[in-house]
């Protein structure tokens, strides 16, 4: 009972979800040993916790620890978990329903999808004849999702980008806590912004500068065809357009050309580009349809292409992971279990099958890293000595690079969202003994700005910081079975040209090598 009261103290401040807000009626909750009894008015039951109004204030009690008596007690067998998703169409159309179906299949629940219109549907899950969950979906933009989360008309927001400062402020003002807290968001799958053209367009590669010129209308004609370029884009206010503005146009103080052909969803955009040899657009990698992805090539010649691996390693600069944001209040037990399922291996298979890039770690042997070595040799010169190059190639020998890579928010020492998640992923793998009797080397690299010696120091510091964070998160791991070491090579082995901030951002990183 003491435990139950501790629970009460901890959760008293939290409000219960919109689900199962029952009629206010009298209940008595008795501890299983009968020692303690609390009476009051039931405010809600979420499948796991009772929330009651008592003389002492609002208490939240673990349903497993108490017995409920009185007219207000919920029918435990008739309890239906109700919660809803709102936000990015790109996530709500295929990815999230596929994951819910996967979760349902694992639990032996039957799935019924009830379509209310182009923007709304409900997924009902039944255990035999009994409904166990009713999950609502509202499809709009990422911003709509945050709006619904703030208005408490949705329980989970689907977002193609992180919450913007104004959204974080509004949430705080509304008493909904800190949306930038890592506990409030999670990455479901990985994705990226990629330039696309029709298959019969002869173009194969493009520079970021040229993308900016195309999208802003500074260049309006295809050079090779001497024909006008048609720019295709998603509707204004959609998450992907916001990303394009934030990541590609705004840094160069540009805006999207007026008169672009707008599309209601990603499939329309991809189909529009695929069907028009004069078209150019930016799409999500997970839905380029029958169009062709262009490789990014910088002025220094290093190619970057969005692939499953380059997304996992964040080596591609315009990564656009898919987020879920949850409120500070408690969601129904079923919803929480679903969110836990999302990080498991089965969900990763569903994500892959649905055509998205999952977060399963991969390892790449040195032999598969030829381009990186060429980059390293090409970058050797004034700042990177031959001795340093030799040290790098020696260190690489016999190692594999994990796709788990850590990158930082623009110029800061703060990890970006995907990397922050990687700390936990790696820590869990360490705890599970996945790297027992192996050595994990955290290898720091920097951009080429500033002196080589200072960069090397900075790179080592970052690598140590990441190693320490992983060690701390993996508190249940056996330290005697794993070796976590640190190395640094500063600006040797760049991955991207450094003509712009996005390139420098790709180069500032901590890689993880396994030996």
């Amino acid at each position: 009972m003491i435990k139950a009261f501790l629970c009460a103290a901890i959760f008293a401040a939290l409000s219960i979800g919109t689900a199962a807000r029952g009629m206010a009626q009298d209940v008595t909750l008795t501890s299983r040993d009968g020692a303690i009894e609390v009476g009051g008015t039931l405010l809600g039951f979420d499948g796991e916790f009772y929330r009651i109004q008592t003389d002492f204030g609002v208490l939240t009690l673990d349903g497993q620890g108490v017995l409920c008596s009185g007219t207000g007690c919920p029918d435990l067998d008739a309890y239906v978990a109700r919660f809803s998703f709102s936000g990015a169409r790109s996530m709500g159309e295929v990815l999230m329903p596929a994951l819910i179906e996967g979760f349902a299949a694992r639990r032996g629940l039957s799935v019924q999808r009830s379509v209310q219109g182009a923007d709304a549907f409900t997924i009902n899950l039944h255990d035999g004849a009994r409904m166990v969950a009713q999950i609502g979906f509202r499809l709009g933009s990422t911003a709509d999702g945050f709006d619904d989360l703030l208005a408490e008309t949705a329980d989970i927001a689907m977002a193609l980008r992180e919450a913007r400062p104004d959204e974080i402020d509004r949430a705080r003002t509304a008493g909904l806590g800190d949306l930038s807290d890592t506990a409030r968001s999670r990455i479901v799958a990985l994705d990226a912004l990629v330039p696309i053209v029709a298959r019969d367009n002869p173009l194969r590669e493009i520079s970021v500068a040229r993308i900016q010129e195309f999208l802003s209308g500074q260049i309006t004609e295809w050079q090779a065809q001497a024909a006008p370029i048609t720019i295709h884009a998603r509707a204004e206010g959609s998450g992907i357009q916001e990303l394009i503005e934030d990541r590609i146009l705004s840094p160069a103080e540009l805006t999207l050309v007026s008169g672009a052909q707008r599309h209601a969803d990603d499939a329309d955009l991809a189909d529009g580009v695929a069907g028009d040899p004069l078209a150019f657009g930016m799409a999500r990698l997970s839905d380029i349809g029958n169009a062709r992805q262009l490789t990014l090539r910088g002025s220094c010649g290093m190619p970057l292409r969005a692939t499953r691996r380059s997304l996992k390693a964040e080596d591609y600069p315009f990564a656009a992971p898919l987020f879920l944001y949850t409120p500070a209040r408690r969601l129904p037990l079923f919803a929480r279990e679903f969110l836990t399922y999302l990080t498991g291996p089965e969900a990763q298979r569903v994500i892959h099958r649905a055509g998205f890039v999952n977060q399963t770690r991969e390892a790449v042997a040195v032999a598969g890293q030829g381009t990186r070595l060429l980059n390293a040799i090409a970058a050797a010169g004034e700042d990177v000595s031959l001795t340093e190059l030799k040290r790098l190639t020696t260190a690489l020998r016999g190692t594999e690079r994990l796709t788990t890579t850590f990158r930082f928010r623009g110029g800061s020492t703060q990890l970006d969202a995907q990397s922050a998640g990687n700390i936990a992923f790696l820590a869990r793998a360490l705890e599970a003994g996945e790297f027992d009797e192996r050595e994990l080397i955290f290898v720091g690299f920097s951009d080429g700005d500033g002196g080589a010696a200072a960069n090397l120091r900075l790179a080592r510091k970052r690598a140590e910081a990441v190693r320490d964070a992983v060690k701390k998160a993996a508190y249940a791991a056996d330290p005697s079975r794993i070796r976590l070491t640190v190395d640094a090579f500063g600006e040797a082995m760049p991955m991207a040209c450094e003509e712009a901030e996005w390139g420098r951002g790709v180069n500032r990183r901590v890689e993880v090598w396994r030996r």
Partner: protein
Amino acid sequence: MEKRRSLLVAGSTILIAAVVGHLMQNADRYFSASEPATPVTTAGQRAEAPILRSLGVGAITPLLASTAPRTSAEPVSGDVALPYLADELTIPQTLTDQRGALAARVSGLDRGHGTIQPGGHAYNQFGHPCETTMVARAKPAGMMAVQVTASCKPHARLTISHDALRFSAQTDANGMLRVDVPAFSATASLSAAFRDGTILSAIVRVPDASEYERVALQWRDQGVMQLHAHEFGAPNGARGHVWAKAPGDVAVAINAKGGFLTLLGDAALPAASMAEVYSFPQFVARDSGVVRVSVEAPVTPANCGRNVQAETLQPGVGGGMQSAALSLDMPGCDMVGETLVLKNVLRDMKIARN
């Protein structure tokens, strides 16, 4: 000798009862991967409870009478066994005849055929012995050629099931039915349930089933929804737009150039289960790309403003097909003539180049 024979009767009766009972209860998911990989047929005779109670020679007469296949005047629902009248010609049998029939049956069991013939003592109106079997064999493009022979069940309604797929069909005047069904897995099990409770089953090995990606849409009664596939950006009405009115060609699929739609179910039957299955080769002889799969629902005076239902089937994580019920609120009757397009209830197919 007499004792041994009656024991054999008892043994085979219990076996039949157990097999049939099990089949009736588990028709949907009866066959596991450990079943024989070659085509197998099983006769679906009904065994009744009284047989199990009496094991003596006296039990032989009811045994033979009740195991003779027959069509029923009264449709039987579910797997509840009801008594019913045989309406085909049955020749009265002497005890000697019956012993001979028993010997034939027992030797049939000994040969391991799994096909139990009741001695050919029941005949249909053409004088052919009653026989109820289902045979399936693999065809190109991951298809199964299914043949149901129920010579004493002419014009009989049956439901054919494979994985989560289900459709209604009817035998012809000779009690025959031939239908091609797409296989959802390399070892495919099929069952056919007649309304009199007879259940037939077959397993067939379809090696190239896994080379085809499939999705399906199925419904009961009047079809409102249609499955549409747009292959590699094919516009409406063009080649590569595959749907019920342009179902494509299996030959094209065999050449890895396109997909095809299989229409299943007999719409002439009342409240028939109908299905559309779209198949596409996983690897194609051209650039990789996407087949957009959608479900369309034209708004008609009959369905406007109403709720319509169907079921979707698409590959699940475990390898089998995953089904989901689909319920759709049709727009009001001012929208008659428009078509609702559901682009995402079925996932698009991402096809890799071979």
